[in-house]
């Protein structure tokens, strides 16, 4: 039996190691597949962004709720002493204060069903996107009339709001960074609201949720 010389052995070992280093190439190409765990966006050089997502709200400009979460009481939608037939319109603006585009939707609920009655409706809510807000009359005369003129209707049109959440849009809508969307929110106490709805208070809550 022929024993390989030490020189031969060293050279063979060197060649084996060199061939093994070819595995590096395989490994590198594998990062592409091994780390390709998403089905959509192909990210090119420098894909990692520490972007921020910040949904903001406000009346005519989205200056409230900067940063994560929070709740805000709409001053123009704090409706006192609503009499049957009265309505009040107020602007509500949603903005993207973050650095990346987002999609959002909102739901609205009431804190109780005191102003909800399917047979004799009480509080009805209408939200129109991009409409002009108008209000006439005064509280003391029980003759306030709010209007949303123009714009595009939403899923909330003459909606008998109650404790079950109702969506604002049929699906999430997109909002580019720094962009805003304005809404006209019209709250109306139906003319036929029954006497049982006298001296009742309910809180409307719009819950916006945004995703990257």
């Amino acid at each position, binding site marked *: 039996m022929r024993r390989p010389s030490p020189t031969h052995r060293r050279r063979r070992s060197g060649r084996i190691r060199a061939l093994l280093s070819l595995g590096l190439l395989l*490994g590198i190409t594998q990062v592409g597949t091994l780390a390709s765990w998403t089905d959509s966006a192909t990210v090119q050089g420098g894909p990692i962004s520490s972007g921020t997502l910040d949904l903001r709200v406000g009346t005519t400009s989205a200056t409230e709720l900067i940063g994560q979460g929070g709740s805000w009481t709409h001053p123009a939608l704090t409706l006192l002493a609503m009499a049957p037939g009265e309505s009040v319109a107020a602007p509500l603006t*949603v903005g993207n204060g973050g650095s990346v585009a987002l999609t959002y939707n909102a739901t609205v609920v009431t804190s109780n069903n005191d102003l909800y009655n399917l047979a004799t409706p009480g509080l009805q809510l209408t939200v129109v996107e991009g409409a002009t807000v108008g209000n006439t009359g005064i509280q003391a005369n029980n003759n306030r009339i709010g209007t949303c003129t123009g714009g595009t209707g939403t899923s909330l049109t003459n909606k008998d709001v109650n404790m079950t959440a109702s969506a604002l849009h049929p699906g999430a809508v997109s909002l580019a960074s720094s962009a805003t969307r304005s809404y006209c929110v019209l709250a109306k106490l139906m003319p036929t609201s029954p006497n049982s709805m006298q001296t009742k208070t309910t809180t409307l809550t719009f819950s916006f949720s945004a995703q990257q």
Partner: protein
Amino acid sequence: MTTRARSLLRETTLTIGAGLGLLCLLLAVVAPLFGIRLLVFESGSMAPTVEAGGLALSRTVPADELAVGDIVSVSPGSRQRITHRIVGIDRAGGQALLTLRGDANQAPDPDPYPVTEADRVLLHVNHLGFVADAVASPYALLLTGALVVGVLLLAFRTRGPREGAGRHRGAVAAVAVVVALVGAGAAVPSRVTATEAAFTDSAAVSASVATTTVPVPATFTCGGLGLFSVTFNWAPVPGAFDYTLHYGAGGSQTVTVSGTSRSIVAVISGGTAWVVANKRFPLGGSTTWSSAASNTRSYTVAVVSICS
């Protein structure tokens, strides 16, 4: 460079090259077998646990091994892969409905994810995602290709001046370059894509709606007493359409009065009386809201009537 130093360099390069190559081979073959994945965090909604640019190693586990608090990566349908922490699990059979939330998010993701298995994060290191991303670039591949070519030349080149040696070396180099280029070509279409640790944000806008109250007549008094009669007077309520006077036993009888005074004439009788104001509104049509009851009076009508 001395021969000894050159030899040491050669040996070191070959050994490191072989070691890394073997590691890559193992990773390429073993990782898919055990469901091991590398996750690059594209955004920072898992901060401060994992920041944007973090790299995580995950393993696919069945749904029943998942627990609240685990960081999992799910790839829901056509949507972007999401890696967030489990905050709620609803189990049904082998399926689980996962509620996920990013550590940096205040609210959970809007919709729960139905899964039969998920990639549980085993360990994670910040910043390494940038390295993985760089390694998967075609430039890195070319560089690696060049390195491998160098190593091959080092191992296969023949020593000393010999006829044909240059051509031999050239052939090996050509093969290596072709391998590198093919590798690069394969890698270019499959660049690193990343898991999105999607940010969410929520905002609640609240508004209170209160309805009006019809005022109660401020006073309700006994007026003049007569033979078999008693009179009640009350303070007017602004805007009242009319008033309802309750009288008789326990106030069981009513009469609608447009003014603010009313006499009850009867044979011997008595009872309790009070009044409520009824109001209609400019925009409410015939809808009538009534006030609460005024204070009450007890009375008796007879030859000598009494009211108090």
